[in-house]
């Protein structure tokens, strides 16, 4: 365990009850990890924290990760909880540079869930697994009383084989590195939001949910010098960048005009008062690459079906204070901070 924990954990998490913000991927969740989970289980130093853990086993390097899925509604434009549960977990493996191989799947079903819905979800999982090149090899099923679940919750865990020589983590990010995103931001979050009870608005937006290993593999095969990858889920680009900047002790400066956001997403965000940079995605990654490889990395992304709309959005600089800043279109500079919780809970 990190010996520093005793220095910053005398205060309990604010309030004495779990709140939705604790699951939102922002500051409240970080606080929960640092004050409750890491002290109990031990946690890696910030520079090594990642979407998946890399374990050395008998000479092989395995990436291991798990994720639970509680998205509401469980069918949404562009996907469903089943495909999401495959994409989310294989993407966490891919971000560690691991070829995803095997998944487990736990089903928590609510009494009264239509079997037809379950069959559709399972078929969608199978199709997503086949597309991502993984096998679902073990699983578990539990049923809870009517009213005690929201139809269906899923948990998937995944293992993958880390490609030789790859050690990507936030601690490797250096001043000068280029920051790239693989496509436009915020589509998943806004697609879910558009079909939420009480928020319905008309849109053709579909979730960006997709498996990213193919894109990552293309970058590896081309020999691009990658420092760190992160897929953009809860908290969006903002949370990912702030976490990495703080872990690496660097300043990340973004160009507002370079950040790709669809007009439809921008419009909906303006209307609802949301920041597209903090809205969830499920098929987008941010890549930190060596400055000399930035142009090539961008070309590879743009040449891949999963990298359409990729863009170079900023650069890493040395301190003084670690964090993220954005240069606005008016030329002024302002910091970007992660939210406390999620702008809209239960998005994945």
């Amino acid at each position: 365990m990190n010996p520093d924990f005793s220095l910053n954990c005398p205060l309990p998490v604010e309030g004495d009850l779990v709140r939705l913000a604790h699951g939102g991927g922002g500051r409240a969740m970080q606080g929960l990890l640092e004050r409750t989970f890491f002290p109990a289980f031990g946690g890696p130093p910030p520079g090594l924290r990642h979407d998946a853990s890399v374990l050395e086993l008998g000479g092989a390097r395995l990436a291991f990760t798990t994720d639970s899925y509680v998205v509401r509604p469980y069918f949404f434009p562009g996907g469903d909880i089943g495909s999401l549960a495959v994409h989310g977990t294989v993407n966490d493996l891919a971000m560690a540079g691991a070829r995803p191989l095997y998944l487990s799947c736990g089903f928590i079903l609510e009494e009264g869930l239509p079997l037809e819905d379950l069959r559709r979800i399972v078929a969608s999982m199978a199709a997503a697994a086949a597309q991502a090149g993984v096998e679902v090899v073990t699983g578990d099923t539990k049923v809870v009383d009517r009213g005690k679940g929201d139809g269906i919750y899923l948990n998937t865990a995944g293992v993958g084989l880390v490609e030789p020589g790859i050690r990507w983590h936030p601690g490797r990010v250096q001043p000068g590195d280029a920051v790239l995103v693989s496509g436009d931001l915020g589509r998943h979050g806004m697609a879910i939001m558009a079909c939420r009870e009480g928020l319905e608005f008309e849109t053709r937006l579909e979730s960006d949910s997709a498996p990213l290993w193919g894109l990552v593999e293309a970058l590896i095969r081309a020999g691009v010098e990658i420092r760190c990858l992160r897929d953009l889920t809860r908290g969006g680009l903002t949370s990912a960048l702030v976490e990495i900047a703080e872990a690496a002790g660097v300043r990340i400066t973004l160009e507002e005009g370079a950040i790709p956001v669809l007009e439809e997403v921008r419009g909906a965000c303006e209307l609802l008062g949301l920041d597209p940079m903090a809205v969830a995605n499920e098929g987008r990654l941010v890549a930190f690459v060596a400055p000399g490889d930035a142009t090539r990395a961008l070309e590879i992304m743009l040449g891949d079906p999963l990298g359409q709309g990729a863009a170079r959005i900023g650069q890493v600089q040395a301190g003084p204070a670690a964090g993220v800043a954005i240069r606005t279109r008016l030329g002024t500079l302002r910091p970007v901070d992660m939210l406390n919780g999620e702008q809209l809970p239960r998005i994945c």
Partner: protein
Amino acid sequence: MKYLDEYRDPEVARRYVEAIRRAVTRPWTLMEVCGGQTHAIVRHGLDRLLPQEVTLLHGPGCPVCVTPIGQIDQAVYLAGLPEVILCSFGDMLRVPGSGTDLLGARAAGGDVRVVYSPLDALTLARAHPERQVVFFAVGFETTAPANALAVALARRQGVKNFSLLVSHVLVPPALEALLSSPRNRVQGFLAAGHVCTIMGYREYQPLACRYRVPIVVTGFEPLDLLQGILMCLHQLEEGRFEVENQYSRSVSAAGNLQARELLEEIFEVVPRRWRGLGEIPGSGLGLRAGWRDFDARHRFGLVESVGEEPGECRAGEVLSGVLRPPDCPAFGTRCTPESPLGAPMVSGEGACAAYHRYRRLEEAT
């Protein structure tokens, strides 16, 4: 994006900034009234583009910030009743009351729901006739018509299980309170464009005249704000004190007559406590006697409590433009968005939140 990008054009912004530089010959202190304007100014860094002679103070126009603690406590109390579904705009959920906030009430088992419109709350009431749906009606003149409409529709549709916890506030009495204070430093106002979209701007003319202060009705995009500042500075430099309308694409002198009639029918002007500022006469709206059935205070027999402000929060000074958020000793240390001492650190329109979100790094270095 159409109707947005035009008002954020960097080249036009640069020309406005140059015009402002040319116009200014001595120091001036302006206040933007609305928290939405504050956030746009800080987010786009507009204050950084202005010459150093121009100081912008941030006004009290954040409805979440000025909702008194006693009314948050009433909302928390209602949320704890088993029959109640308490509906609110999202920003209100994290504003601390004297005990907990509405998120805390929800974590403790209360049925608290975020809605984007009071009409959504009315829909909920129709869908759950066995429950009592209460909408926490906060806001300035801007949000009041929709709340009035919800009540009118509820009566017309015979919805008996819907009520409002009304905490509406009015802008002109607050400006008057600021102007008549001996600590006032404000020499010109950017009035809130959306409030004036409803109310028009004739009621500001006596204020401009009596206190010899220019008032420019201003929008919310960077170019709106820069143009509003320029118009205000021209008046100050020329010694004029008039009400002018920068936001003419949305605001007319008389406002939205239909909305005003509805307000008049359903609400009456009442004295109102403002968080951090105290009671201001004639500065609130309450339901008229004929609409008492829809008043949650009446329906649930609530008593107005004053509520204890946390001692350390200096929201009143921030809301009246006397204290800059980063100059507060608790800013960013004992008071953060995760653990706020007062509402201006929570709300999407709060000045402290704006500085914490957009300025924290540089204020820290």
